[in-house]
């Protein structure tokens, strides 16, 4: 009964979004208020309906309604309730519905925020978002309907894959979707600017924040995925350059390029065509990523269901590209910029180089992902590239970007004098070099790793000195204490100083990534109470035990960890056997001991006999600096929050620019 209602609500949402699309187009053309209002209401209605559909599906999952095919195949009675809740997006149908729901949420929020300046720009943006909504909802309704019923209720569902039962995996897909889908807002406003010929910087001002939000979620989503892979999949790493990972990386790279180059347009009215192209590319890559993971064009280890919707996505990608490119070329003459570059050693030059590197990185990843497809088309033979290729290409590009992270923000607009370069970079440069020399003496020989540490030191020094100089100047002019000045400085210039914090997070990520250069691992066989060493640690095998839980039988190995003869603690790597499942699935649960210096990562692989003696099989990994990846992620989050935090003064400035009355708070 509820499922039928869900289905009905879904189709009603198709109807309201078609209605919103048409009304918004006419509203954009005629500027009639009544049409604008009815488009807005249709957007709110679509959101309400998607929310209801999502709510119904959640309810069906939580109440074990196995007469619904999707619930029967993705949940089971014994699943903890919280995971029943998240099992909704563990399959294709539910994730598409989540996608549509997130999209409707963004569209609704955009409609609410643009009420203050209704007009063709907002209307056309609404029509673009609503049209995309129609596409997704039709796809769900026709091909991937989560409310499809079975004639009879099976006694139990077939359950969620145990590998997916993990907190990181519960929030990783929604995070990624917030990222993927969120890029539609800047895209829609860019297209609306082209359609309405309102090509001043208004669309950029409107969407700047909107770009940071999806950018942040896309990045965080990937880091969470990495965390999950590291903790659950048990191969000792967090990033494997798998096509699905790359698919999420691509729009993140172009999105980052966009976030930077958009500043040139704001300040100097340059690069208008380029920015349009970047946002089109970013949104296209978002849809392309979905196409890639769902179509089976490239083989991936991710167990996504392939389904007939692949061609639909392919067609949608083609439609976006053709539509956007045609529209852009029609407006090319209006987008010509008047300003010229003065010097390559300038903020503009830095941003351009940044864009160049990000786009090359995008191309390199795209090339690697599509290499089998391209080679098959050209030579008839399928040839692939894997991690070694990506590392060979992306490490140097990444290092150049890291260096630029330190240099770029300190360059002056238009041109930078030699004197100012000297003043800004002597200290920081020396500090970076000092880091390098110390590490080289200490025994680091890997050239890329050394460069990475030198650059990290340099960038950190530039960021610290920026904060320090700012705070000192403010402190002496405003008579504030150093700490007070530091806080005020940041809160008055959130974009700038928040940006520095984000950059610092990136530095920490790089430090973590660099640890990969020093990874060690070995396969170990231990008899009872026998020991083996890896790096500074010695591990002693202290036996194995088995416990039977309601869902799993756990085979737990015990290892004592020693360093310099001192016992540091105990590790319990284990295997879980889901003995109630038909397929008797096993999962390997690694044990990890983390500190700032390194992770000791241990996997238990079972018992075997050697010449009549029983031995336990282990795989030990020593992964230096991994912790810094997660710390970097938190710093990145903090920085993004600082950037995003609404600034009342900004809002006021904007209202005034738009000729609107001052808000109550400002008057008071």
């Amino acid at each position: 009964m509820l499922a039928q209602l869900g289905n009905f609500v879904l189709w009603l949402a198709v109807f309201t979004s078609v209605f919103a699309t048409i009304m918004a187009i006419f509203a954009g053309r005629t500027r009639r208020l009544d049409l604008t209002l009815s488009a807005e209401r249709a957007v709110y209605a679509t959101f309400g309906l998607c929310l209801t559909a999502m709510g119904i599906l959640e309810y069906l999952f939580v109440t074990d309604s196995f007469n619904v095919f999707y619930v029967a195949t993705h949940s089971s009675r014994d699943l903890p309730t919280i995971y029943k809740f998240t099992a909704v997006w563990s399959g294709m149908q539910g994730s598409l519905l989540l996608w549509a729901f997130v999209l409707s949420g963004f569209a609704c929020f955009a409609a609410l925020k643009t009420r203050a300046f209704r007009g063709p720009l907002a209307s056309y943006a609404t029509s673009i978002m609503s049209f995309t909504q129609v596409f997704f909802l039709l796809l769900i309704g026709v091909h991937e309907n989560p409310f499809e019923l079975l004639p009879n209720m099976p006694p139990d569902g077939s359950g969620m894959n145990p590998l997916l039962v993990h907190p990181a995996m519960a929030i990783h897909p929604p995070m990624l979707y917030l990222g993927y889908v969120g890029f539609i807002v800047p895209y829609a406003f860019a297209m609306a600017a082209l359609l309405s010929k309102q090509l001043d910087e208004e669309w950029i001002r409107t969407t700047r924040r909107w770009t940071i939000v999806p950018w942040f979620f896309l990045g965080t989503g990937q880091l969470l995925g990495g965390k999950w892979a590291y903790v659950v999949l048990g191969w000792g790493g967090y990033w494997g350059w798998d096509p699905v990972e790359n698919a999420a990386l691509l729009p993140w790279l172009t999105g980052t390029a966009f976030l930077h180059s958009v500043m040139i347009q704001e300040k100097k009215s340059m690069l208008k065509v380029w920015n349009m192209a970047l946002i089109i590319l970013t949104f296209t890559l978002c849809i392309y990523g979905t196409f890639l993971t769902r179509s089976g064009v490239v083989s991936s280890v991710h167990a996504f269901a392939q389904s007939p919707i692949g061609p639909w996505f392919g067609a949608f990608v083609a439609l976006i590209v053709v539509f956007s490119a045609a529209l852009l070329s029609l407006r090319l003459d209006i987008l010509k910029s008047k300003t010229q570059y003065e010097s390559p050693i300038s903020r503009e030059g830095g941003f351009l180089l940044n864009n160049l590197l990000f786009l090359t990185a995008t191309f390199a990843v795209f090339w690697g992902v599509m290499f089998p497809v391209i080679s098959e088309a050209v030579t008839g033979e399928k040839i692939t590239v894997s991690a070694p290729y990506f590392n060979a290409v992306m490490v140097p590009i990444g290092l150049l970007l890291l260096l630029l992270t330190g240099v770029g923000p300190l360059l002056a607009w238009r041109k930078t004098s030699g004197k100012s370069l000297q003043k800004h970079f002597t200290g920081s440069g020396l500090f970076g070099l000092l880091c390098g020399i110390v590490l080289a003496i200490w025994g680091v020989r890997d050239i890329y790793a050394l460069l990475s540490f030198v650059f990290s030191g340099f960038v950190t020094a530039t960021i610290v000195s920026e904060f320090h100089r700012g705070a000192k100047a403010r402190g002496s002019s405003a008579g504030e204490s150093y700490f007070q000045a530091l806080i005020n400085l940041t809160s008055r210039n959130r974009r700038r100083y928040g940006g520095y914090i984000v950059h610092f997070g990136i530095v920490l990520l790089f430090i973590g990534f660099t640890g990969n250069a020093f990874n060690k691992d070995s396969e170990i066989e231990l008899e009872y109470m026998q020991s083996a060493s890896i790096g500074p640690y010695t591990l002693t095998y202290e036996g194995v035990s088995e416990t039977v839980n309601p869902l799993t039988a756990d085979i737990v190995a015990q290892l004592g960890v020693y360093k310099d003869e001192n016992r540091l603690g105990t590790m319990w790597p284990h295997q879980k056997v889901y003995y109630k499942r038909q397929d008797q699935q096993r999962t390997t649960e690694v044990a990890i001991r983390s500190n700032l210096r390194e992770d000791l990562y241990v996997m238990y692989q079972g018992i075997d006999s050697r010449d009549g003696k029983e031995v336990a099989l282990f795989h030990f990994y020593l992964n230096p600096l991994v912790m810094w990846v997660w710390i970097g992620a938190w710093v990145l989050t903090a920085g993004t929050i600082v950037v995003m935090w609404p600034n009342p003064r900004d809002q006021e400035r904007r209202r005034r620019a738009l000729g609107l009355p001052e808000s109550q708070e400002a008057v008071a």
Partner: protein
Amino acid sequence: MPTKKIKFIAGFAVIIVCLLVLVVSSSQKMAMYYFTVTALEAREVDFVGKHIKLAGKVVPGSIEKTDGGRTVVFQVWEPLSNPEGTFSDKRSVRYSGVIPDTFRDESDVVLEGKMGADGVFTAETLLAKCPSKYQSQSFEDMKKAHGQTSDY
């Protein structure tokens, strides 16, 4: 065109060319041929001893742990796209190393390694995709299983 602009463009062009050379040359250097079980059958002679990727499905019941559990020997094949639903010839594989949780009968596997002269493929890496119970179970199958019977 002012010389400044020419210099500017030339500088960027040089950087772009360098980066593209890096991308293309690395991809050629590190490329690996990718075969399915049947495709390898046809080209086997040319690729003995060469580093390649091989994709297939694990033959049910073929997984044997030897050498104390760290090494597995198994066979892969692939379903042929014909109405009878038959499978291709089998190919024996030997692999030592970490065995992923997702590796079992009927898993889709992607292997990286070398073909030996004896016809056995020695894999250095093994990636396995779950033979998800639910994904192989189509709506039609479930309707059959839970449709006509009305015991509950």
